[in-house]
């Protein structure tokens, strides 16, 4: 039997936004399973948020669902008003709220573009700023969520990719400025994750088969393939990692196999 640490967040409080489903929910559950009390931030999916709260309570931890529209300028204020009603400390902040609208650039409208920057960039800045005094007190950690679409161009993904690239740059500034007061910030840049979003995209099935090929059969990640990485970056184990974005994509963007590409595009019998 090994003496593995699995209570890394005992006595700590975490706030996870976008925690009613997908990666946010998986992160909330994972942190709770290691001892954290969790504030479950959500926007519209009250049912999902309640389910997460119930699951956390079943682990014997405290959980509270807090509704806030983070694309609204006052969203972060609302979130923290709710948070401080129930919790008096904050150790781990995971701003996971996000959305992804697919649209090629020639069809890009200002509203779609702004919606993406509002939730993926502005909202993270505002949420982190609101959390900073409490994080400073606890020597807390921030773990942001990004996408490999910030480093490479995926069909129709510009609005998200560009906003997340901005987020990864924001991370560097935030990490550099805040580490001086003991607040440690990092990010996980994910490949394609099964969060229900693929079903909403017209190109969902193509994405799925692309990912299946490029990850050598691993396929689309489950939220719980990503949540252990967030937990690691929130834990003491990663104390020496600051301002870094961990790419976790199952190898999807690692390289290009020319033969495989030709076979995928032109069929198995294509002459090489």
């Amino acid at each position, binding site marked *: 039997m090994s003496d593995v640490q*699995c209570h890394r967040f005992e006595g700590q409080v975490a706030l996870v936004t976008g925690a009613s489903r997908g990666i946010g929910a998986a992160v909330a559950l994972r942190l709770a399973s290691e001892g954290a009390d969790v504030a479950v931030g959500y926007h519209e999916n009250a049912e999902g948020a309640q389910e997460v709260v119930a699951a956390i309570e079943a682990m014997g931890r405290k959980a509270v669902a807090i509704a806030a529209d983070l694309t609204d300028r006052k969203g972060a204020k609302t979130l923290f008003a709710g948070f401080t009603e129930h919790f008096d400390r904050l150790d781990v902040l995971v701003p996971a709220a996000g959305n992804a609208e697919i649209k090629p650039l020639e069809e890009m409208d200002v509203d779609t573009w702004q919606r993406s920057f509002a939730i993926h960039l502005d909202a993270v800045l505002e949420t982190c700023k609101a959390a900073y005094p409490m994080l400073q007190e606890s020597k807390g950690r921030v773990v942001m969520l990004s996408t490999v679409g910030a480093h490479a161009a995926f069909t129709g993904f510009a609005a998200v990719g560009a906003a997340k690239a901005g987020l990864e740059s924001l991370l560097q500034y935030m990490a550099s400025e805040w580490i001086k007061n003991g607040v440690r910030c990092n990010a996980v840049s994910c490949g394609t994750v099964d969060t229900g979003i693929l079903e909403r995209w017209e190109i969902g099935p193509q994405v799925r088969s692309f990912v299946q090929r490029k990850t050598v059969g691993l396929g689309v990640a489950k939220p719980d393939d990503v949540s*252990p990485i967030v937990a690691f970056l929130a834990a003491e184990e990663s*104390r020496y990692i600051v301002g870094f974005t*961990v790419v976790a994509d199952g190898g999807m963007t690692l390289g290009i196999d020319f033969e495989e590409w030709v076979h995928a595009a032109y069929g198995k019998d294509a002459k090489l």
Partner: protein
Amino acid sequence: MKHPPPENPGDLTGKVALVTGGTRGIGLEISERLAKRGADLILVYKKDVENAKAAEARLSATGRRIQLVQADLRKPEGVDSVFEQVAEGLDQIDILVLNAAFGTMGEVHRMGRASWRASYDTNVLSPMLTAKGALPWLKRKGGVITATSTLGAHTAYPTYVAIGSSKAAMEALVRFMSFEWAKYGIRANSVAAGPVDTRAIDWFRYPEAVRIFTAKKGLAGRMGMPHDIADIAVWLCTDESRWIYGQSIIAEAGILLGVDYEEWTGDDDGEGAEGGAA
């Protein structure tokens, strides 16, 4: 909810880890953590038998099986001899930690051919041959390769070109191994460490400058220690990092993250030194 979190995340019970340079410094800290998570160990060391025995004695306290292997990894026949001894010993490798390193300090204009070659032989050729040698075992049930690298592969330090550039090559090698061997269920990643308080710091012309800078800029007001890096390397060996392929995780406590003009002008009042700061 679906996907309940694992009961024992990061458990390595039943696995065998081969660690090169595993009997001192960061390698020893990695070995100890792997053993505490339940892995048996094959520790490769170069020549210091006494130190290797001491490491074995310390690690035996974990109750894991330990096989010591003496080999000079800079020579291809040295790498071959490792795997002959593995076959006769524990005959299993699930985790390969490429940690043995060597480097000659010196600026580009002073760098000699032999010194350059020695750095690249230990830091690039040897990891390639070692990984290749371990491949038949790693393929059996799928495995993990974790390499220790340096921040010097991503930036530049004084007199560090032989190590920094060879480690950059090693990180590229790791990426290619991950790309080529994913089909065998093998993952490969690196952790690139900022300056860590090991005997290697004394190779710098002004070791004190490295220590002062790192402690001042670092997160905990102290220099990086082997355990800071070992925690990350070992985590990369566990299933917790299962979605990370071919990456270099930079671990430097934020020392190179930002530029603080005031520091560079020696002006704490922020009034700007002579000549003015931007």
